[in-house]
């Protein structure tokens, strides 16, 4: 496999990683910690939104992020013919 091909694959992978890690950071450290007081002024049913992100929402997003990553990478592997 030529190195140009590998480099392009790696670059796309890094792009996905950056976006997903950014979301990971925002839902936990952002919504759940740094801006928790601001978000707590918004309500969702019986939950204050900041509290909900800290104890529920961030975890749901984490699970989702991994499965999105799995899908993206499976597609990427196929595109670069690196799947098995």
């Amino acid at each position, binding site marked *: *496999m030529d*190195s140009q091909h*590998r480099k392009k*694959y*790696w670059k796309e*992978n890094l792009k996905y*990683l950056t976006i*997903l*890690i950014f979301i*990971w950071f925002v839902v*936990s*450290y952002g919504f*759940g*910690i*740094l801006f*928790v007081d601001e978000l*707590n002024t918004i309500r*969702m*049913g*019986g*939950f*204050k939104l900041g*509290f*909900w992100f*800290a*104890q*529920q929402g*961030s*975890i*749901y997003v*984490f*699970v989702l*992020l*991994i*499965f999105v*990553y*799995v899908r993206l*990478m*499976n597609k990427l*592997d196929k595109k670069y013919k*690196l*799947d*098995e």
Partner: protein
Amino acid sequence: MDIQTWTFLIVGLTFALYIGIAIWTRAKSTKDFYVAGGGVSPLANGLATGADWMSAASFLGMAGIIAFSGYDGSVYLMGWTGGYVLLALLLAPYLRKFGKFTVPDFIGDRYYSNVARTVAVIAALFVSFTYVAGQMRGVGVVFSRFLDVEVNTGVYIGMAVVLFYAFLGGMKGITYTQVAQYCVLIFAFMVPAIFISLMATGNPIPQIGFGSAGEDGVYLLDKLDGLMTDLGFTAYTDGTKSTMDVFFITAALMMGTAGLPHVIIRFFTVPKVRDARKSAGYALLFIAILYTTAPAIAVFARTNLMETVQDTPYEEIPPWFTKWESTGLIAWTDKNGDGKIQYLPGSAIDGGQPQFVESRGSSGQRMISNASTSPNELYVDRDITVLANPEIANLPNWVIALVAAGGLAAALSTAAGLLLVISTSISHDLIKKQIAPDISDKKELWIARFSAMLAVIVAGYFGIHPPGFVASVVALAFGLAASSFFPAIVMGIFSKRMNREGAISGMVAGLAITCYYIARFKLGWIGNPETATEANWWWGISPEGFGTVGMLVNFLIAILVSRFTPAPPEDVQEIVENIRIPSGAGEAIGH
């Protein structure tokens, strides 16, 4: 049938199941023993990782910690789940592609150095021993609570069971027993949770239930906030920790999770790179079921406690109260002599645990000798949050027995995973890789079995004679994993320029500063213990959160040193190129 009979029956059945699986999945080669032959399906590995990860502390303790700390408990919820995103995205697929047996294998080969390998082995042993001592103790405590045996007898029984399947099956035996243990523990956790949620809010899904309203139409969380602020507690949904500290603790737990060897090695057991990604997703999904239920249980339990006991005369208290009082998990002192229970902020006792005396008080309560001067009259052990759930919800006896089996499954599965890391570190990383590289596969397998046995005995010893600091060193285990393994592995994958000198000095610096801080402020071993107070913490960061600083120091030193030292050799750069490409992992597993 009474609770005792049910408990013996259900616990006996689950143990028979674990032992049956162990006999069925005997290891025939070192590959079986270290990585279950590399043929575990992503789903099975996800289930096994879930059981491996969730310990007695997660099962029995976490809901309690959250119930008594409210928003501050979020650090554990986010910290112990968010790490899996890092694992899935930054570590697991590449380490699987690398295709060796252990974390020190990667560190040693990637940094072409036996010094790096040895630093990694020491860190792995230290982290795992710290962790496993608590688990063996946990096994003993669960036994003593549910089966009325001595804590030490419980530890012996737990040792015998773990030894059986770790010795016979290694990773293969452990993996398939963990799959069974996950099913037992999640069922045992969810059944009472669903019933309690139904009782409190009419909604069977606890995750939604705790954001709903009770019969009186008031949202549960608002009611709890109100109950607490009326009595002078901080509102449940507001924390008492500083934002800075919450941030750093969460980060330390996340990076620590991603760096824990017993979690990482689980991803060596799947056949392909894509399976490693997927099984990390399954693992987090299965963990999230328990971790999103725990905060709901916490709210139900805390509300129930405050409503039931506040200003209630001792004579009218429900039976679960007196039952757990008789086991020493609840203690009440009638400080103002009105015969009613007052539950207020502040510790009701001096020291960690109530010291019971023989006599009974005027209301019939058990008397203690170490009541504090605080107006708070009630001591409640946090573990009660999960333990007393089935009784509070009036569930049948078999559910209580099920909770016992679940607690044991959680403790045993985590202990087994850790013991495997310890035995592999000895037989593979030290003996095969450094002392006697020429030994045959068959011999190495036997050495692995005997190191597993040795590890069980040492862990059992720590379980029976727990070193005084064990309870407080979970922080240490996560801090050390965060400040050593996480940066070294991430840089090993994402930077081709990172070299031996950088990695070693980074790990040593990260470990050293984290150890120093915990010894100084948590254990009081260094410096004047009088000044080891919150006011003197660096930047207001607690010892629990300091692993994050250790990690940053590791990154910084490693990058700095590597710039002034030669780049890694060609063949190592080739390794890095290679692990970034997912195909061809199948053949890489052998040696």
